């Protein structure tokens, strides 16, 4: 009984915390946007707009009231899920986001798959051959992705696989399901390679910790093959840190879509975010930032709850 209540209250606490974080992100976005120089009305109306025209547009957008009252209105709108209209397109931001969220979601999902697929074997090799050549090699290989900016890596991959070998499209979204998938292969790989080094290092440490544990030594002593030990025990016990790690790095991954989408001409939230920032489209930037933040929070919540389910000690945190 006590166990169940503890589990329930943990969940409730985590969800409450998640909500607070979302509101925190909304507030931070608001403050940040209003601190940036450059007038959105002037941006939209162009160089020759008269002072009256600019003032009228600012009034229409509510930019002429005090910061405090703007903020109150903003939070109020948020709670009722009114996200506003884009300054640039004069369309509801939800329409524009709905058009593009699928692409970003697919990119992140595929990138995660790639990241996990590449990380697991590298980390396993590194952990099971600790301090030998294979360990260093595996880690060195993974570091390459760390230092390469994704836009550079992206162009190189396009040059090799799309232009020279003609295996994949150079960019754009592709048509149909298979075409779309094909168009996402290189971008997802590019995004994944950026986080692989961190994942490999952390997972390797996690695996080493488990490998050094008593019960594993006992298993080894009992004669089980190294591979079996690795797969069965290490994988199971390393699952928790992997999940937590993935949760942490999803934020970074989602953030990196900003660059990858531009390089590969994908119509996702990342590229829209970049153009919205530069055109000072406040409602658009606020809405997309929230969507991305909520995704991160939701994914972290899910991994935390999953980890808590697997390991009761986690709930003490």
């Amino acid at each position: 009984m006590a166990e169940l209540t503890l589990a329930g209250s943990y969940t409730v606490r985590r969800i409450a915390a998640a909500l607070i974080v979302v509101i925190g992100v909304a507030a931070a976005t608001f403050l940040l946007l209003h601190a940036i120089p450059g007038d959105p009305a002037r941006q939209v109306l162009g160089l020759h707009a008269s002072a009256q025209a600019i003032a009228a547009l600012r009034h229409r957008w509510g930019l002429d009231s005090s910061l405090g009252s703007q903020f109150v209105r903003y939070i109020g709108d948020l709670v009722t899920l009114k996200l506003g209209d884009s300054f640039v397109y004069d369309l509801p931001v939800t329409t524009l986001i709905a058009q593009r969220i699928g692409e970003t979601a697919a990119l992140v999902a595929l990138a995660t798959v790639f990241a996990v697929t590449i990380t697991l074997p590298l980390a396993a090799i590194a952990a099971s051959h600790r301090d030998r050549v294979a360990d260093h090699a595996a880690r060195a290989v993974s570091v390459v992705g760390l230092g390469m900016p994704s836009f550079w890596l992206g162009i190189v991959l396009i040059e090799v696989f799309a232009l020279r070998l003609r295996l994949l499209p150079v960019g754009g979204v592709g048509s149909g399901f298979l075409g779309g998938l094909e168009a996402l292969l290189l971008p997802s790989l590019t995004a994944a390679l950026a986080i692989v080094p961190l994942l490999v290092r952390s997972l390797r440490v996690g695996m080493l910790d488990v490998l050094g544990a008593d019960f594993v030594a006992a298993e080894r002593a009992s004669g089980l093959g190294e591979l079996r030990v690795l797969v069965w025990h290490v994988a199971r016990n390393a699952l928790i840190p992997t999940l937590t790690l993935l949760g942490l790095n999803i934020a970074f991954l989602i953030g990196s879509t900003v660059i990858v989408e531009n390089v590969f001409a994908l119509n996702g939230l990342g590229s829209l975010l970049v153009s919205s920032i530069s055109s000072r489209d406040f409602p658009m930037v606020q809405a997309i930032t929230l969507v991305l933040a909520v995704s991160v929070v939701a994914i972290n919540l899910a991994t935390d709850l999953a980890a808590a389910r697997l390991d009761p000690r986690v709930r003490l945190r």
Partner: protein
Amino acid sequence: MSIEPDHRLTRRRLLRQGALGSAFLAAGPLLGSAPARAAVARASTAITKGGTLTFARSVAPTQLDPANSIIAGDVYTLDKIFEPLFITSPAGELTPWLAESYTQSSDHLTWTFNLRPGVKFSDGSALDAADVVFSLKREAANVDGPLGFLDSAIKTVKASGSNQVVIKLAEPWAPFLSDISVFANAIIPANFGGRSEKAFFAKPVGTGPFVLDGFTPDSNLTLLPNPHYWQPGKPYVDRVQFNYVADDNQRVLQIQSGAADIIDAVPPANVASLKGVSGVTVELFPAWEVDLLVLNEALPYFADRHVRRAITHAINREALVSATSFGTAKPGGSFFPPSLQYYDPNTPVLSYSLAAAKAELAQSKYPNGFATKLLISGGVEKWSEFAQIIQQSLAPLNIKVTIDSLDHAAFESTFQAYNYDMFIDYAINDISDPDEMASFEVDYKGSGVKSYWSSYNNPAAIALVHEAQKEFDSAKRADLYAQIQAIVSADAPYVPLDYPPYIYATGAKVHGFAVNPGGAYRLENVWLS
């Protein structure tokens, strides 16, 4: 890659007219001394109809109202749907379009336009004078809009019968026909064809070769042929797909792989290698565009003419062009680009000479140099390269330049507030008449922006600009603009750095594509083999 929208092809709207006036030569459009480049004719093969034209562009449309559009993405999209009375051909000539002919009174105050018969809107309704009246009045009334001032010469617009429009000007105005040709004066149905303004522009109806099919903001836009288009047999293609591709390398890769049929804004560094790719043609179209280094004369050291002349002498424009444009651009001289009407190739230019620069500086009030800041828009490679070259060029004069690279929005609001020492940007002429550039950069009051934000105020030059606006004799007008160019060159309020072309690349199956010097391209002549 740049995060600014339309960073290279942002339109710069010019002009605010004070007193206007002069008759435009009745003899029809004028070329002036500039050689014009006609559209390249490919080896002639029979025209095949059909196909989808995929056009990857560095600009994205946001909305399609001619009266409220300013950015390249909007302008170069809506001009496929709406057409004005006159257009500018790829050779830079004013060409009758929806107006078949016109006459003007001897005092140049009354202009009568005869509409082309048989023109229909895409909904099948016929074009008549009422539509022209509605469109021009709407644009002229839109004084708060980006280009409302272009029509400030217009006093009344009236229909005279269903095929004739009579426009009375407040004063004689030489560039009038050019102004009429600007995209903002395109013709839309009277009263939006009975719909609300918002509904109309969501599904626009125009006389142009194409109609809007689909629009995904910040991604792509598709056009389908206008079934009622007045030019028989055109457009040739079945569909136009505009894709927004911001990343330069991605665009270049798309034309190489054939994913795109046409790309715009080819980076000069890629021109040579693209030319070597079989099936890809790189075309350089002369542009009415000049890159300028602008000096703020509100500051004491730039108010000093000797300082400005010294700076001009110190910059090696040949070297700058050689290093940054890979043979595509020409070094700057006159503030008019060579392809613009009344450009004077004999304008005395302050040529590169460190000795002359030092001599000028010695005569100034600041012989020992000074420290100053150069403001540029970040994210555009070219400006950064220019800035670094200028920084090095002025160092021998003891003029210590610090580069201030801001994001585009901040850059614009900074120089527009006159809050700069020097800045780099470009000036364009949208129409065939050079008065746009002349007024914008020389007319301190009339430009509304203190002579391209430079605060350059030379009464002699301003008087010449006003006189040229009234002058109808072509030879006299040429002489006036020659004088203006000479004065500006000697005063050096800004340094014309170079004249960049519009660089496009097309695939092997594209024929009939051409860009006019204002940057616009008509797609009804394009066919795919």
